[in-house]
């Protein structure tokens, strides 16, 4: 009896490891395709030579000029890495939120982080900040919006915050910041700043710099690690607050960690790339269909799939059409029908 059970568990672990290995291989493949794709063509041989030169300073053949080096290391690599980081980050925070809110229809911006960040960026553009200033303001306002949602719902429910109150207040705060975004557009100069705001809000990675990638990398990893550490508790949390309490979970502590980390991740992503919708909703959904609802495996698989998905979409956005399509628009165009398809196919992975 016991042996059979151990055996089956081992089988499941094996299957899960296989999925992770496959995802890593596939992502690596997409990574190389993406890095070689673009208006300025670079061959795999040239790429490896350039990388070898970077690492050990070996000589490179004459067919490679300095433009190639700049494009590879200053443009493509930051863009590819940021797409992967942002996809992974949005998916991780979406997955965490779906567990906490016990609802597979929740996306990471449910508490207002995206609208808050959007408003922050709009103000910063209005006040002619530089790109770092825009990012910082967006990040801070994203955090501020979620902070508002959190503390207002605490005040409304007098300490005993329920998830429903939190979602409702989140929607109110979101809508407040959305209308404030509209105000900034309304008063912005229609030939310079208004298009800049609109373009920022559409979301895209064309302006990513190597420094952005460094910041993203540090912030996202720092916030994903705590999420990974509490992922068993997210499982328990998805059974509802009272049951989780009866199982010994310090609800308010876990919830604060979860909201704080998810918010930091999403705010960092949105402030680097603008609003990129649907990734944080669909990817955890897909991951759940493949590996089941256990966050032990669901969270890492969501990260991997999210990174791969956004990298794929961003590569399409910048190379398939004669003109680059804003990434945020493309994720919605791909995401919505795909989501409909999932719904039509039957609700697998949730109830």
């Amino acid at each position, binding site marked *: 009896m016991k042996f059979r059970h151990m055996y089956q568990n081992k089988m499941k672990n094996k299957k899960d490891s296989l999925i992770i290995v496959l995802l890593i291989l596939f992502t690596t493949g997409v990574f190389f395709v993406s890095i070689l794709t673009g208006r300025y063509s670079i061959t795999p041989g040239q790429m490896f030579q350039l990388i070898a030169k970077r690492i050990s300073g070996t000589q490179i053949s004459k067919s490679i000029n300095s433009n190639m080096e700049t494009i590879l290391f200053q443009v493509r690599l930051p863009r590819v890495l940021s797409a992967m980081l942002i996809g992974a980050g949005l998916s991780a925070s979406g997955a965490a939120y779906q567990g906490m809110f016990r609802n597979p229809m929740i996306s990471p911006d449910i508490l207002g982080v995206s609208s808050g960040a959007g408003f922050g960026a709009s103000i910063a553009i209005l006040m002619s900040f530089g790109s770092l200033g825009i990012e910082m303001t967006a990040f801070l306002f994203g955090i501020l919006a979620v902070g508002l949602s959190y503390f207002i719902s605490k005040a409304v429910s007098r300490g005993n915050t329920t998830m429903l109150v939190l979602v409702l207040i989140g929607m109110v705060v979101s809508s407040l910041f959305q209308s404030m975004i509209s105000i900034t557009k309304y008063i912005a100069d229609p030939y310079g700043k208004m298009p800049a705001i609109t373009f920022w809000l559409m979301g895209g990675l064309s302006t990513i710099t190597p420094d952005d990638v460094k910041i993203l990398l540090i912030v996202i990893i720092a916030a994903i690690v705590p999420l990974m550490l509490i992922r068993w508790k997210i499982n328990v949390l998805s059974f509802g607050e009272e049951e989780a309490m*009866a199982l*010994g979970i310090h609800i308010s502590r876990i919830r604060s960690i979860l909201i704080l980390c998810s918010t930091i991740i999403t705010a960092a992503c949105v402030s680097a790339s603008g609003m990129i919708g649907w990734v944080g909703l669909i990817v955890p959904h897909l991951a759940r269909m493949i590996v089941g609802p*256990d966050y032990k495996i669901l969270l890492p698989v969501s990260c991997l799939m999210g990174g791969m998905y956004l990298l794929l979409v961003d590569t399409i956005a910048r190379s398939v059409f004669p003109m680059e399509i804003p990434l945020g628009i493309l994720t919605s165009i791909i995401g919505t029908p795909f989501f409909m398809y999932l719904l039509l196919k039957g609700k697998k*992975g949730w109830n």
Partner: protein
Amino acid sequence: MELILEVKHAVCGYGKKSVVENISLKVANGEVVCLLGPNGVGKTTFFKTLLGFIKVQKGEILLNGKNIADWSRKSLAKMIGYVPQAHTPPFPFRVLDVVIMGRTPHIDGGSYPSRKDIEVAAEALERLGISDLKDKIYTEISGGERQLVLIARALTQQPAILIMDEPTSNLDFGNQIRVLQHINDLSKNGMGVIMTSHFPNHAFLCSTKVALMQKNKCFKVGDVNEIVTEDNLKEAYGISVKIIDTKIGKNKILKSCIPILEE
């Protein structure tokens, strides 16, 4: 392990409104206390207070002499297991994974269940005779099976006291009796149980003590034969009943309650 849960003159309710007043009760190892009373009388509120979901308004609740408000969530969960009414969570976990969640209070902060935790969960499933459900999807099994799984999860906490919210609700006749049988077996092995029920017969079948809650906030507690009487049930539920004795075997008498409709 000797363990006593003691409720002293507790007043329970939400915010400033009190629902249950002046309730006093004691549960020790091996005792089954059945909580009877009409809908809306505050049984759930009382349970939520016992489990520490809401604070007691007046009076105190002591576990081994120490106020439950002073226990950490984790250590409380090692002592008191909660069996909620069977429900459907949003995500399709495997039955074994659901049961392993009972190990949560025994698992350290950032870690995951160990092999030993999985074994404890598998044992709980075996104890309830539902090992074959192990790899089924929790959201796809029947209500009766889900109730047993939730009991298995609470046993996996290895608590000394089980708090069961209408463990027989939504179950067919056979499953109701099977759950009561399990409750009986557990108490024989030293588990203290507090459960709610809508059926006085369930109290006769397995409880050692009965607490009868009434609409007028009057609260009676005592031996099952003292409390579940024709008069008391009439007062609490407003219906007429007859209590009859049935001889089972040589010298065992089982009481049961028969409702009588008005002519």
